[in-house]
């Protein structure tokens, strides 16, 4: 290396142990070749040695032998939600190469830094290799059977003493759909609703916000469809780093249509660099911005009056709120000049189709749900929903966060958003073929069975708060974490106390995650190596709701096991423990009876078939494993922009949208093509058309909630209509169009009153079929709600962040009063009152975000040597003015202090104009240091990520969205000083 750097010395020392195996002189695969004397003649001779030898060499080197055949396997990138196809080259069971996946209509051969280096994951030098437990603070190796046995024993002891709700089950957006569903089902059989995953901390507010607006909590269009847009606003998102391949579609669209690309963000991001207009706002003022834009739109009559009249409920209340946000007030609160607001408003409202793209800048706020609602209302007011090039293009985070949300890793619902009420439970009991009463018996009570569980943002509060503050039998005592880091949740100093107070902590992950180092636990901690999705079959949903089938590339490496097997074996171990304790509850037999179990694991296909049977409400019934596999096989047959199978495609996929984006109604045999664009009235429902969902009744305050004069193409009912039930079918005279078999199925499942059977609970899919035959959308045809009366703020209003530098605005725009939700107290105004004392000493707004090289908590990506090399230090971006005032130089060490728990982190300064004066930004992927202390030794030996650093969430603070308990990561206060 031709490099000597003075400021890098410390980093190098820190990296010294990590560096082994990376440098040219270390143990990289090439060096291995050299050291093994296999270069030149040695390797040339390999062609003739026995297969066993070649395989061993291959396993060690991971390089392709071109004289031997190479198998190509398609899977999906395990990083973000874009869903890039990964084409792996496999030889002798070793992943030796990666080729561009030209056929995929989503990524068309391309990748980002993470996708281009995923092969490293399945080599996994730093993976967790075998089950381990903490004994007196030291990690000890153990067998799977012993580990599961001990874990089961402890879980059952806790169940006996404190009830099933004392076990917190944290799942993962890294699961396949099947894994997520299986884990949710496990939680149901265990008897708790405290089962959550990363969506809580990424887009839970989006799901709540958009589902409450127009029916479904998902991206309405797709990455590909953005190519049709004439105006794009990206607000609170940085897809250039978070979803790089999406920029292929965004920039192509921008170029082809000469489209406007407007970026609204406190930070001049890599995305903003490509914008035609960049608007810098004060963090936490999204609603004033949207209302400010709408002010100009209403003022100038740019709104889509027909669309509002036909398809929107309650817009007049929005007008009343928007009227308050005249240009002067808007500028006072947000800092954006009135002229720019007017310009952007005019472009967005008049140069259509327009789309609004958002990410966690919108959602990770104390007003996250309200933000999302405001965004949706802006789209509704301008008629930008349900057409090509429009829509709420919500870029979700992890590779299967959409699927994991869809399949119920959520404390408020069973799979497919059925909720937790008795009807929901009864539906799933029918799907699972178990009695409703037997499920009640698994819970502490029917009340607990229907009460939302404890969300991942607050698990530690549920451990440490006094017992009477936690609304369940006992505090949390145990936590099972599958595929989830601990450093992505705010208030880490508090989390540390919570973790240390747990009786049992089980970490199931390909990597040790930050939970390994985050606390000073000494016992009662287990780590089980899960394999990645590359070592496992299953489907995953991209952000655009397209499902893609990933085929296993290689067998699970080391002793790791796939999620299906782990859950299956854990259920078995729990049975054994229950038997030892003379408890009557059993798990494995009932839970897995519908699946095909092979080699100690249910097959992904059989799990997906059960999902098809049950997840009717999101139209997952038509998405069979066979259809998904066909789509992967014929990827090249789908159009780049419409995602529709091109003319001349094989009959078995003809007319389909790629990946059957849900809703894909009816049985697989009905061949619904999936819905590329939600609520698209220009298509027949059987061609993927739709309308806003009738989810909130038919009437409110004397006004109809159903659509007026708007319906999907070919509908026999040319007006709004409620969701379809047997009662509705009878009323329309369509009941007898159900086949005898369908009627029998309904009769069997609804013996008391078949009128109650609906499109979402009729397992035969007959109601859906009949509705679609008449061109009607099974879920009804309603208006979208500008007024969501069931939310704390039915019309979004601005509320200052909990910790705000603008203390002058608190009185006028206070946060919500203290309240209770999700079994826990939720403080609002009482914490916000601290701002008056905090702001003078912590004058800089701290916000956080993504780096392209890393993902989520970052343990997996920081263990990938190719990625780790690119970002070797945790840093804070600070404006040159703020840096100069503090004598901070670029690249120097600084302390960033937070206003709670005396928290501080030691990071490098990156002096840049990306952030405005008074704002600092930190990436959230780092862990391994706490308050300046390097805790590398806490990781099991050999599993420590290459790069460690401070977690931004050590200094983030209190603040939760009232609807979902989303954490506030985007606006808090800090102080920065040179270290």
């Amino acid at each position, binding site marked *: 290396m031709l490099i000597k750097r003075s400021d890098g010395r410390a980093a190098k020392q820190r990296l010294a142990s990590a560096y082994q195996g990376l440098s040219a002189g270390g143990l990289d695969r090439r060096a291995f070749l050299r050291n093994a004397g296999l270069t030149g003649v040695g390797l040339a001779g390999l062609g003739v040695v026995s297969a066993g030898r070649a395989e061993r060499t291959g396993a060690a080197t991971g390089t392709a032998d071109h004289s031997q055949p190479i198998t190509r396997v398609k899977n999906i990138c395990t990083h973000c939600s874009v869903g890039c196809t990964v084409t792996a080259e496999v030889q002798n069971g070793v992943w030796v190469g990666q080729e561009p996946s030209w056929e995929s209509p989503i990524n068309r051969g391309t990748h980002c830094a993470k996708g281009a280096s995923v092969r490293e994951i399945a080599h996994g030098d730093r993976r967790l290799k075998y089950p381990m437990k903490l004994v007196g603070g030291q990690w000890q190796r153990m067998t799977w059977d012993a580990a599961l046995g001990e874990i089961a024993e402890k879980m059952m002891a806790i169940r006996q003493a404190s009830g099933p709700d004392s076990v917190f089950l944290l799942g993962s957006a890294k699961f396949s759909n099947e894994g997520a569903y299986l884990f949710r089902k496990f939680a149901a059989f265990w008897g708790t609703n405290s089962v959550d995953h990363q969506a809580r901390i990424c887009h839970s507010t989006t799901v709540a916000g958009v589902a409450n607006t127009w029916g479904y909590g998902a991206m309405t269009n797709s990455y590909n469809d953005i190519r049709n847009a004439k105006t794009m606003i990206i607000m609170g998102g940085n897809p250039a780093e978070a979803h790089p391949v999406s920029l292929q579609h965004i*920039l192509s669209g921008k170029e082809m249509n000469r489209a406007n690309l407007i970026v609204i963000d406190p930070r001049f991001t890599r995305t903003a660099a490509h914008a035609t207009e960049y608007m810098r706002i004060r963090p936490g003022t999204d609603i004033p911005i949207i209302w400010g834009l709408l002010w100009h739109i209403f003022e100038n009559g740019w709104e889509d009056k027909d669309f509002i009249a036909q398809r929107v409920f309650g817009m007049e209340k929005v007008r009343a709120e928007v009227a308050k946000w005249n240009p002067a007030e808007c500028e006072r609160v947000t800092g954006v000049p009135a002229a720019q607001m007017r310009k952007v408003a005019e472009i967005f409202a008049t140069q259509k189709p327009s789309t609004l793209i958002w990410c966690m800048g919108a959602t990770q706020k104390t007003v996250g749900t309200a933000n999302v609602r405001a965004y949706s209302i802006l789209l509704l007011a301008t008629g930008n929903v349900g057409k090509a090039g429009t829509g709420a293009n919500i870029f979700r985070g992890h590779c299967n966060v959409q699927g994991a949300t869809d399949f119920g890793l959520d404390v408020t619902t069973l799979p497919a958003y059925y909720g937790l009420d008795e009807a929901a439970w009864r539906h799933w009991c029918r799907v699972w073929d178990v009695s409703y009463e037997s499920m009640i018996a698994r819970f502490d009570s029917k009340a607990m069975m229907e009460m939302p569980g404890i969300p991942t943002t607050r698990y530690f509060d549920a451990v440490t708060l006094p017992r009477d503050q936690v609304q369940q039998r006992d505090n949390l005592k145990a936590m099972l974490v599958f595929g989830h880091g601990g450093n992505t949740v705010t208030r880490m100093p508090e989390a540390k106390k919570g973790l240390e107070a747990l009786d049992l902590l089980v970490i199931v992950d390909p990597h040790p995650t930050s939970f390994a180092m985050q606390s000073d636990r000494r016992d009662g901690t287990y780590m089980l190596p899960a394999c990645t999705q590359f070592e496992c079959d299953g489907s995953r949903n991209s952000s655009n709701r397209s499902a893609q089938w990933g085929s296993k590339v290689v067998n699970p490496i080391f002793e790791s096991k796939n999620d299906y097997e782990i859950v299956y074996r854990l259920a078995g171990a729990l049975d054994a423990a229950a038997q030892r304790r003379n408890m009557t509850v059993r798990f494995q037999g009932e839970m897995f009876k519908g699946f095909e179990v092979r080699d100690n694991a249910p097959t992904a296909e059989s799990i997906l078939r059960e999902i098809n049977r049950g997840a009717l409400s999101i139209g997952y019934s038509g998405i069979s494993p066979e259809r998904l596999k066909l789509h992967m096989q014929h990827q090249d047959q789908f159009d780049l922009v419409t995602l529709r199978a091109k003319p001349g495609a094989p009959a078995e996929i003809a007319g389909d949208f790629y990946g059957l984006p849900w809703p894909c109604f009816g049985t697989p045999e009905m061949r619904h093509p999936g819905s590329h664009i939600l609520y698209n009235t220009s298509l027949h429902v059987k061609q993927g058309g739709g309308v806003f969902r009738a989810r909130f009744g038919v009437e409110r305050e004397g006004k109809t909630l159903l659509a007026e004069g708007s319906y999907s193409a070919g509908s026999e009912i040319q007006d709004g209509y409620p969701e379809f039930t047997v009662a509705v079918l009878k009323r329309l005279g369509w009941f007898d169009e159900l086949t005898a078999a369908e009627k029998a199925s309904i009769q069997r499942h609804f013996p008391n009153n078949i009128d109650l059977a609906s499109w979402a609970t009729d397992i035969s899919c007959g109601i859906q079929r009949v509705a679609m035959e008449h061109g009607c959308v099974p879920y009804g045809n309603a208006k979208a709600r500008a007024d969501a009366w069931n939310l704390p703020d039915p019309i979004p209003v601005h509320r200052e962040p909990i910790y705000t530098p603008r203390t002058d605005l608190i009185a006028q725009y206070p946060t919500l009063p203290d309240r209770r939700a999700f079994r826990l107290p939720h403080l609002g105004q009482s914490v916000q009152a601290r701002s008056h004392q905090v702001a003078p000493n912590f004058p800089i707004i701290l916000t956080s975000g993504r780096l392209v090289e890393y993902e989520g908590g970052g343990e997996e990506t920081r263990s990938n040597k190719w990625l780790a090399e690119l970002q070797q230090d945790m840093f804070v971006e600070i404006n040159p003015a703020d840096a100069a005032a503090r004598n901070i130089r670029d690249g120097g060490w600084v302390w960033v202090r937070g206003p709670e728990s005396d928290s501080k982190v030691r990071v490098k300064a990156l002096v840049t104009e990306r952030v405005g004066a008074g704002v600092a930004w930190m990436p959230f992927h780092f862990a391994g240091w706490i308050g300046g202390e390097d805790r590398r030794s806490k990781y099991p030996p050999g599993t420590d990520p290459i790069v460690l650093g401070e977690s931004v969430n050590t200094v983030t603070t209190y603040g939760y969205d009232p609807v979902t308990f989303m954490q506030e990561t985007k606006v808090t206060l800090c102080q920065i000083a040179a270290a």
Partner: protein
Amino acid sequence: MARMKFLLDSDRCIECNACVTACKNEHEVPWGINRRRVVTLNDGRPGERSISMACMHCTDAPCAAVCPVSCFYTTADAIVLHDKDLCIGCGYCFYACPFGAPQYPRVGNFGSRGKMDKCTYCAGGPQADNSPAEYTQYGANRIAEGKLPLCAEMCSTKALLAGDGDMIAQIYRERVQRRGYGAGAWGWRTAYRETVAV
């Protein structure tokens, strides 16, 4: 015969570093050796542009001109390669290269340079195509398999183009005409003494 070149459309490049890790992954390039890198100009300000840069495989390559042991050679596709068995790691090519392409593993004492390593345009080296010996020294030889460099093939926004110079210039030209703007072809004036006229 084709004249292979790289062309970086900085209006598309988003500094996602796919080119960097694709290269590392394909050729198993160790830490500290950066055959390709992404540099961001005007960071954080309007006009910010990121540019992915590697060996440009220059016409009249300066590295070849100054090499004391004459270890460089140019293939029929005009790809500039070198023979590591001849390289002595003197570092002269780094002084002459306008693009900072040559990289040196640090071996031995006081930062003494090992044999130079640089982008091979995924065309390997002088050994037999796709032989293990070639892979060990130079990495994969995609050109021999009829493929293009992986960095360009995997570029997330198709900002990085690789292939015959005339063809990629034409692609770029069409892009600029369609969208109405273009910052030009980075490094072309220096590497090839020509620009892409639009």
